[in-house]
């Protein structure tokens, strides 16, 4: 289940999980106290204190749990060779307006791949899309920096994976695309 939570649609669900109960509660409170029962409440101010404590404790615990659970999915903390024990395949690339120079476009499924990228002019993105349209990961490259940007990712399924620049880089930004081919492992 956590595999779903930490995806794009998982992010949408998490946002709605936080927003919808709030919206319903706010609607109920505002409607009730402006149309149905506009008088002051019989509750004493001291009676609000436990509610306040419960609400803030819940929010704090929720925030901590969501972020702690995500640690397992941080690309640099989970997918490196030191963690997986698998040797990494290296794919180096250079982004330039409006194309990529990629060292290897054919990748085997099941093997961790370290993508390392640089930009030779302005800021560019390197987002890899699953054939079903999901973003698998995205990276940003800043020019004139000492280290490349890097992500380790293990493709599970063979197929054609589109690469798109997701950082606006000028009038042909939308055309800055490429493709990776993932094949079955030998």
């Amino acid at each position, binding site marked *: 289940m956590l595999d779903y939570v*930490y*995806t*794009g649609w*998982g*992010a*949408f669900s*998490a*946002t709605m999980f936080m*927003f919808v109960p*709030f*919206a319903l*509660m*706010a609607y109920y*409170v*505002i409607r009730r*106290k*402006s*149309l149905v029962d*506009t*008088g*002051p409440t019989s*509750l004493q101010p001291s009676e*609000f204190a436990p*509610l*306040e404590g419960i609400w*803030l404790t819940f*929010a*704090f615990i929720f*925030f901590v749990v969501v*972020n702690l659970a995500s640690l397992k*999915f*941080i*690309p*640099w903390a989970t997918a490196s060779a030191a963690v997986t024990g698998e040797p990494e395949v290296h794919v180096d690339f250079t982004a330039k307006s409006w194309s990529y120079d990629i060292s290897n476009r054919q990748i085997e499924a099941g093997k961790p791949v370290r993508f390392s990228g640089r930009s030779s*002019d*302005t*800021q560019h993105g390197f*987002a890899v*899309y699953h054939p079903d*349209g999901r*973003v698998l990961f*995205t990276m*940003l490259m*800043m*020019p004139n*920096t*000492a*280290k490349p*940007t*890097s*992500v380790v990712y293990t493709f599970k399924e063979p197929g054609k994976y589109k690469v*798109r620049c*997701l*950082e*606006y*880089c*000028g*009038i042909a*930004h*939308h055309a800055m695309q490429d493709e990776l081919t993932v094949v079955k492992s030998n």
Partner: protein
Amino acid sequence: MSIASAIVNNTPIFGKMFTVDKSTGLEEINAWPALMIMSSFVWLAVAGLLGLVMPTTQIFDLSSDHFYTTLTLHGAALTFPFSFQLMMGVGLHRSGGCVGKAITGWLPALSWLSMNLGAAILTVAVLMGLKVSVVVMFPLPLVGAQMGIWSMESVIVGFTGIYLVLSCMILWYPLLVFKMLFFGKKRAELVLSERSLNEPGMLGMILAAATLLLTGLPLVVVGTTLLLALYKIIPMSLAAWAAEPVVFQYTFYLFAHNLMEAMALMVASAMYATLPLYLADGSRKLYSEKLANLALWILLVTSVTSGLHHFITFYPNQPAALSYWGNIMSWGTGLGAAISIFTVLATIWQHGLKAEPGIIAVLVGWALYILDGASAIVTSNIVWTYQLHGTMWQSGHFMTVILAMSMMWMGVLYHHYPVLTGRKLDPALGRLYIKMMTIGSFGAAIVMLAGGAAGMPRRFAAWNQEGWMLYGHLILIFGLILGASFVVYLYNLMKSREISAPMGELARA
């Protein structure tokens, strides 16, 4: 008659909406805010039309050039001369009446002039070909000129415009706020609703002005250096450090992120000040001022460095520690929001609410702000950032925060409008505006977030060729509803009626 009143009176169409009431002796706190608010709505009209052009260019498969031109202009017009200027005008009017000090002299004039002249100059630069999006995307302006995509002249004109806008936000406006709040003599005849600086309704304003000034100064230094080099006043070699992408990115995001947070502090503060005025039992008290102030402080402390989440997907080019820090601080802002939620709802539950259009617009804007806050902290989580950065999620977040704050200020303006102009608004039109605005803004926000979750790229001129046009169509539909709600709002201002009671008395009541 002040210069500001004269400009308002002589402006066609929009001037009629904000003609300053001079019968009450309050022109000194009315004139400049009225001019700023009027100017902000002129820019809203420009931004609204451009916003509709963006999906239209994709539907009719027009040149991507048109898309990127309108993208840059729409974002810039909506963010700075509309949203920031609206906040400036309503916020200044509110604080003037709270501390009993005139809004006169060179600082309000300079604030208004630098914002509007700067935005106009930036518009000229974009029309000259400079298409760098609202966040500049440095070093794209210089790279584009080197590649011959646009001219160096357009870069110089554009940087001049941006510099003027920044000088308003970082220097002139914060200095004006400090001058009003901490210097000069209070004049009893200008006090409309006296407040101390410790109250949440004023504290947020002070924190916001300080944030703008302090987090913006490094960008002023970098911007000044670059501009001097572009005008060849200093050699480019002396400006090389400022042109380093990493230097620009950090100074830019330190300010740009905190600009949004400062505007949030300001509007939260305005809500804390306005809500008590509409409580049904007339108590005029928040559930807890201490809790409200705590929320503002938490927001301030966590937000100053939470902008480091912009650098997460650069790893290991940028240190992981900064990413963790940005992640933690961003979720810390959520705690401030949780406190604010409790304070507002407990206040309404305790005292009841007079559901007038102004306060309902503020509360709907606040609810939108909470939706935006939830989307913002989600996308600040390191793992989710790797899925969402650069997608429509980010555009949805950015548009939503600007809209939420603008809607809250437009609600607060309902409260201030009779004092500014001596006229009152039609509540039926007010309610219609709120309904349309609620549908349009929440609809657009949710569709943009969903588009981001589905991988739809932001600032991208080929949605129609890549299968994302369903989201594009929905954004256009909700955008049209939102645009129509603004037309209703402006129509209400245009058709406002004279109030017979002396406004000075009414305002103090």
